[in-house]
């Protein structure tokens, strides 16, 4: 009798916010939506999609940047959307794919990490965070099969090892650690090409910011779903750096200068492509 009580207590002791919701309020989980039965609509659902995210390591940390455009078919759904978010003090996450679901997943992931920290009184390890995110993406697989996929990029500072690390995912929740740099989204092929030429080991933080903005610029140049720096509206990419001191959002003024330099260099070179 007593043993069963102890077992019950142990089974109920969870530090995971998602597990708690699953048990008590399953309707609040983003993955817990009833899927339509039968064949889907003839044309794909028109929902906003978020596009290019780039991430790279630099001396002492990792950086992640995302453009500001969301598209719905051939229409620009938003010029202000943010696709890179701080996950907790030492990690950030960028999202590509179906914007609505991705933003929900991000919110859940942020609460998941904070919840664990408050219940346990300590931060989850970076590998623990990366695995947790993988499980959430795996939970979204039924939706992904219907065309509502979310593909995140995760970067953080491993406080135990003292290094910045970078993780990519596929729609089945598979987790892959990347070295150097990685990109996701429809503009990723172009950004990746740029990164291959611009990135080198031990970039300083300022150089890394500049490389990130330039690779997003290249992605925006060739991918209609990625937005470039917008001097008219004063819109710049969202850039976060993570190092030993934690995650920091690079201020707009700094990005305006970096983007201004790139635009100037490109226009003075007078080259078409």
């Amino acid at each position, binding site marked *: 009798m007593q043993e069963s009580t102890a077992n019950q207590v142990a089974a109920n002791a969870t530090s995971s916010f998602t597990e708690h919701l699953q048990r008590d309020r399953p309707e609040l989980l983003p993955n817990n939506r009833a899927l339509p039965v039968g064949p889907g609509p003839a044309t794909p659902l028109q929902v906003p999609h978020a596009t290019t995210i780039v991430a790279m390591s630099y001396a002492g940390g990792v950086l992640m940047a995302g453009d500001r455009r969301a598209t719905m078919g051939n229409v620009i759904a938003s010029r202000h959307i943010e696709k890179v978010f701080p996950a907790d003090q030492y990690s950030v996450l960028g999202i590509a794919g179906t914007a609505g679901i991705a933003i929900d997943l991000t919110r859940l992931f942020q609460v998941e990490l904070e919840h664990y920290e408050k*219940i346990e009184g300590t931060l989850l390890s970076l590998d623990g965070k990366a695995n947790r995110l993988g499980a959430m993406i795996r939970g979204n697989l039924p939706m992904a099969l219907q065309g509502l996929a979310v593909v995140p990029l995760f970067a953080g500072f491993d406080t135990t090892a003292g290094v910045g690390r970078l993780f990519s995912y596929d729609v089945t929740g598979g987790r892959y650690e990347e070295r150097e740099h990685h990109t996701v989204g429809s503009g990723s092929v172009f950004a990746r090409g740029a990164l291959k030429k611009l990135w080198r080991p031990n970039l300083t933080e300022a150089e890394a910011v500049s490389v990130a903005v330039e690779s997003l610029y290249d992605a925006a140049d060739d991918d209609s779903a990625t937005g470039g720096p917008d001097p008219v509206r004063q819109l710049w990419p969202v850039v976060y750096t993570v190092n030993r001191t934690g995650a920091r959002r690079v201020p707009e003024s700094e990005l305006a200068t970096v983007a201004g330099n790139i635009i100037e260099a490109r226009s003075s070179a007078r080259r078409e492509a």
Partner: protein
Amino acid sequence: MTQQQFYVSPEQLMKDRADFARKGIARGRSVVVISCEDGIALVAENPSPSLHKIGEIYDKIAFAAVGKYNEFESLRQAGVRYADVRGYSYDREDVTARGLASVYAQSLGAVFTAEQKPFEVELAVAEVGPSQELDHLYRLTFDGTIADEHGFIVMGGQAEKVSSAITDGWRASLGFPQAIRLAMRGLVTDTEADLKAKALPVKAVEVAVLDRMSESSRGSRRAFRRLNNADITALLAEED
């Protein structure tokens, strides 16, 4: 053979339970929660570096408890779950100390009347506001009684003695260093009544604060910050 049933009046039953809970709480060491100019300071006498009596619940809300560890720890975790679910399903600003305190009051009340044994705990729920008038301090006792306190809360073993020491020194204009030193002086009266001069060792206390201006000073909406031994030593080295 069946067991003999005795009649016990409800008055006697409740009184016995209350006495039982009070005795349990009186054995524990004290906790002080002080609202001051910089925010809210929470100071507990606690020799363990890992079993906390003070904890973060949400952005602006902290929790402090005295009594039985397993009981208040389960209440703390329940509070974190309540706050996180509420903030996730509505919005972060919809999580308030008042809501949390009333959930605690209901749980404690239900346990006090319906369970075998009441919880031997006393809790404080503190919420830091943008100005001192908007700070909230709630005291919850084992029977589900809830009180909205002003200025400070003292709970635990020698609450009355500690409380009188704090009352003498409390002013709204205190900063964190003064508030924490005041709390430490109060807690000394608790244990070392005969050796007034002897201060509490840093290792025997647990200190946390809710920063009023955490957004501007630390760039974080989470106001809760636990002070480590070095921080506390530095604070105590200063003069009032």
